[in-house]
């Protein structure tokens, strides 16, 4: 399905060596974080609103089974169909069947799609294309990266790694649009192309930001309005939802709507908040004629019982990405996982397994993610928990495992410690010039290639202390 990933360290180096990406990530981080802080400063009782948001999400998870039953019963009462998918594979099969069923006889199905992280998680586009469907992403950023055959580099701004020149070249090549550096003109090209997609599509496929249990409503938040056309124009609307994304009531939804746009895009309100209750009802002039909700588990129900359960509070605003000093250097692609940044380094190992444990090492544990999270998820603690898993599973390289073991042994034994000090002082004394080591043999040259290392003192503190002590 996807190409094998380069090792994490190589991915990091690729990101660091890309000057365009570095500039874009810096600009993104600075603007988003400053804007977000301003919006929260203006929001009355903002700290209480965050506490309330956290409480709503925690209370929902604590009774998730009951809220899911209430929610799905209401969706069905409103005339929607609910499909439960335990795994990614089951979700893909359900959607493929629905898409095939909606296609015009003898024609390849066309799917207009608005942004859905769950669809990335289950690698839906590849599966649909393999089955002969044409799938078109309608969010401008997603549209661009889909045309380029890439994956999103940021959950809110998927094409943050591209320059306007890249987009102009792409639109010129694919649609014969005249080359331009005017973003408005490029956007007009996308509007023209995507209008044709909405009106040709058999199925509109959207994600879900929130589900409201008391009414059976799904809520989709965008600035572009692409989700609205995606769900209202084609005959069939399929919504893809992670099963943890519920809130109990409309009043709770209102609290989350104060937090999400401020955290995600530094806006008081997103341009479009769409509430979907089901298919078009008798007497209504337009809208989809069938509504299918696909509820995806894919590891969430098991995650709920583990030490990483708190990460299920996440509302996918991306604020922790913007504020993270590591994300700011390596970007979404560096992580090599659908969910990147601090929260991705917890969610990815929790949902997709131990091969993503190493992402948790890419953190300074500075805590900025916890401070900015609208629902105050304690991400640093969970990063530590993932690091423990990494070690317990024997995943760190051998030199590190043995090195730490040797270190631990020396730290527990005064005799070994003293011997270690003696050799460290002797060795670094021989190699150092002016008190600093400028070169060390491999693998220690990983340090000295970029930094000097101070030499150990020739005489240890303990020996000096022994001498200074007044003798009786």
């Amino acid at each position: 399905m996807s190409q094998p990933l380069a090792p994490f360290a190589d991915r990091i180096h690729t990101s660091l060596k890309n000057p365009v990406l570095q500039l874009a990530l810096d600009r993104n981080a600075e603007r988003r974080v400053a804007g977000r802080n301003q919006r929260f400063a203006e929001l009355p009782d903002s700290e209480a609103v965050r506490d309330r948001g956290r409480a709503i999400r925690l209370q929902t998870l604590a009774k998730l089974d009951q809220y899911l039953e209430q929610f799905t019963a209401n969706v069905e009462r409103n005339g929607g169909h609910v499909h439960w998918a335990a795994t990614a594979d089951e979700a893909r099969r359900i959607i493929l069947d629905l898409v095939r069923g909606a296609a015009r006889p003898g024609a390849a199905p066309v799917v207009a799609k608005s942004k859905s992280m769950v669809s990335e998680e289950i690698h839906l586009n590849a599966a649909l294309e393999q089955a002969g469907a044409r799938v078109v992403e309608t969010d401008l950023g997603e549209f661009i990266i889909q045309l380029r055959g890439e994956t999103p580099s940021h959950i809110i701004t998927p094409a943050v790694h591209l320059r306007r020149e890249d987009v102009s070249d792409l639109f010129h090549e694919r649609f014969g649009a005249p080359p331009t550096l005017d973003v408005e003109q490029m956007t007009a090209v996308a509007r023209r192309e995507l209008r044709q997609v909405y009106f040709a599509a058999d199925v509109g496929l959207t994600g879900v930001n929130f589900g409201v249990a008391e009414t059976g409503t799904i809520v989709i938040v965008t600035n572009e309005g692409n989700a609205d056309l995606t769900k209202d124009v084609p005959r069939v609307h399929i919504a893809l939802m992670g099963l943890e994304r519920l809130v109990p009531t409309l009043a709770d939804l209102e609290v989350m709507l104060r937090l999400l746009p401020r955290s995600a895009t530094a806006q008081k309100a997103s341009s479009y908040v769409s509430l979907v209750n089901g298919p078009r009802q008798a007497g209504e002039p337009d809208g989809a004629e069938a509504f299918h909700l696909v509820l995806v588990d894919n590891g969430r129900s098991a995650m709920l019982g583990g030490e990483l359960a708190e990460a299920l509070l996440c509302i996918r605003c991306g604020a922790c990405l913007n504020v993270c000093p590591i994300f700011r250097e390596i970007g979404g692609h560096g992580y090599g996982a659908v969910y990147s940044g601090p929260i991705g380094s917890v969610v990815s190992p929790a949902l997709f397994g131990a091969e993503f444990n190493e992402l948790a090492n890419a953190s300074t544990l500075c805590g900025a993610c916890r401070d900015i999270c609208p629902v105050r998820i304690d991400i640093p603690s969970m990063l530590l928990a993932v690091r423990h898993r990494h070690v317990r599973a024997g995943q760190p390289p051998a030199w590190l495992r043995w090195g730490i073991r040797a270190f631990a042994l020396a730290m527990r034994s005064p005799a070994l410690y003293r011997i270690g000090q003696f050799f460290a002082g002797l060795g670094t004394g021989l190699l150092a010039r002016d008190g600093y080591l400028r070169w060390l043999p491999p693998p220690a040259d990983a340090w000295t290639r970029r930094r000097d290392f101070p030499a150990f003192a020739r005489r240890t503190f303990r020996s000096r202390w022994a001498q200074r002590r007044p003798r009786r």
Partner: protein
Amino acid sequence: MPDSRSAILSQIRQSLAAARLPPAPSVELPSSAVPPPPSELAEKFAQELRALNGAFLSTRQAEAAALVARLVRERGAGRVLAWGGAHLPVPGLLDALRQAGVQVDAGEVPPGPDRAQRLADLETIAVGLTGVDAAVAETGTLVLLAGPGRPRLAAMSVRAHIAVFTPDQLHATLAAWLHARPDLADALRARSAALFVTGPSRTADIEMTLTVGVHGPGEVIAVLVEP
């Protein structure tokens, strides 16, 4: 598959039995204070919407039809995609438009083989005309519930969306509106959809450069009709 439903729910129950979730903070948000007078609400609404490149106009009941007709004409539109007259707060508005030579399309898309063709035709209409269910001053937001006589595309497929509303529909915040409509959960269940529109369709996906009208309307014009 019913199997997956029960398997998922039973896994959730098993996980919750081992629950390791932190306790929820107990906090009640202060309920909204005394609402400011309507004139202040209108001013705040206008300020917020304009900050988002939206337009705000206010007019009197008697002049409203002429104003809307002028807005339509200025956009060179011979047709509008409009909510039914019963859902607009200005009596006779659609008739006035027709008299001004504007065709009014109710946006009916009958199910069946002609659906695609009908939609393609509606897509060519440049101006949409709607009422609102509420207008939120804090954010410059228009709330539109779908329903009979209320085509959703009137706020989405067009280039300019004109929304007509009255001062009593203005609320300080979304929370205040929810508070004023305790029946909303029931009302919503009877509709298939609702939309909160805050300014024109916008994107910043190319180099974080703000651009309007990417999919939905590039123009949102809110018209407040005073009695």
